[in-house]
């Protein structure tokens, strides 16, 4: 229970304890990542609820998007953290990223009943609502991570690098994992669908 309290403190932009050690922080980051995996799977079920095969596939596709895009962004973020001369340990950066993912997937899970309802009752609005919730989750996740990193005394550089790299990775993992929504969206084609050569 204490673990959940800590995670919700992070979502609120507060570090649970200033004197926390590296091991404790990393454990907290792993717990946040584990919760994000669960929440992402819940959203995947809702987004694919019109088609059983799609819903079951989304049980691992959405967690995959969250976990692997984060792993892709961490090395660049850690490098930027060191280059920017941040005074705190890099474990704070890892917690910041994990907390951002936790907050974003919490938004997705909280809105997943609405997404499922719209997909199963509206002819058109399920897709736009699903895309809208994802956009909102990204904004909330980025804001949470930014606020935590700022309070950890880090420069803006590591956050910017992390955000850009994670978004780029997310786009291509979406392409690999598609279809996620019942509709074909231009994100399904990855960067090729967004940028005409």
């Amino acid at each position, binding site marked *: 229970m204490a673990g959940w309290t800590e995670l919700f403190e992070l979502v609120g932009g507060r570090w649970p304890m200033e004197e926390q*050690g590296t091991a*404790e922080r990393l454990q907290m980051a*792993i717990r946040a990542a584990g919760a994000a*995996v669960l929440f992402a799977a819940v959203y995947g079920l809702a987004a694919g609820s019109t088609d059983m095969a799609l819903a079951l596939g989304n049980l691992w596709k959405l967690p995959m998007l969250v976990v692997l895009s984060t792993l892709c962004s961490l090395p660049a973020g850690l490098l930027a953290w060191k280059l920017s001369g941040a005074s705190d340990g890099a474990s704070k950066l890892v917690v910041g990223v994990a907390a951002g993912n936790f907050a974003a997937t919490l938004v997705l899970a909280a809105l997943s009943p609405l997404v499922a309802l719209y997909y199963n009752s509206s*002819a058109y609005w399920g897709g736009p609502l699903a895309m809208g919730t994802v956009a909102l989750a990204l904004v909330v996740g980025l804001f949470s991570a930014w606020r935590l990193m700022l309070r950890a005394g880090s420069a803006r550089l590591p956050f910017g690098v992390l955000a850009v790299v994670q978004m780029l990775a997310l786009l291509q*993992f979406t392409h*690999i994992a598609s279809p996620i929504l019942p509709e*074909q969206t231009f994100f399904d*084609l990855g960067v090729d669908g967004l940028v005409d050569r």
Partner: protein
Amino acid sequence: MILALLAAAQAVVVADHSGEPVGDELVWTSIYHLEPGERCVALAVDTPLGAEVCADRDRQPLLVVQSRQPFPDDVIRPPLAVGPVQRVHVKKAVLLPEGLDKGTLSYASPGVGRSLRRQVDRDLMGRRIGVRGGGLYVDPAQVGRGGIPGRVGRKAASEAVTIGVGLVLLGVLALMWAGHRLLDRLARRERNARWLADAAVEEELTWDGIR
């Protein structure tokens, strides 16, 4: 001829064309909802079905036909009926049409706005035809007999890549679990050190008479 086409244009209320690859062919399953009393549909695109398809029995409101085209292909050739705007979508494949307006969730023929797309979705859903919205919203009047220019192809990411990525995810989750277990002892040591430090400070303060 023109009269026949106009008559045929009245035949279809709404239609949905769903494609799915089977081997090296794309199989289109098309569902036409017909006007009362109509049983034949004139096709706007050349397909193996010919120029017209008809329902077996009179006064049948639904007509379901299957058509095939090579897969992948440089043209999108669902059996569009002469008539209203129709929806075209595929499973396990990607449509990349040319000359259609690109939206976030769909492509549409020029002039086919959001309200018309929604009307098509509502008409289809009201008759329980097809899947959710999205895909292509095509005005057959703007399509030649050769089909919709563009490409229908496989997803660029193969099944093997998707499965590989899934396995990587499993590995990462296992590592996270193992990492959490390994960090347990270190975290306990950090907590104990903090408690000891706090207790020492507390004792100092007590001895100094501050507390």
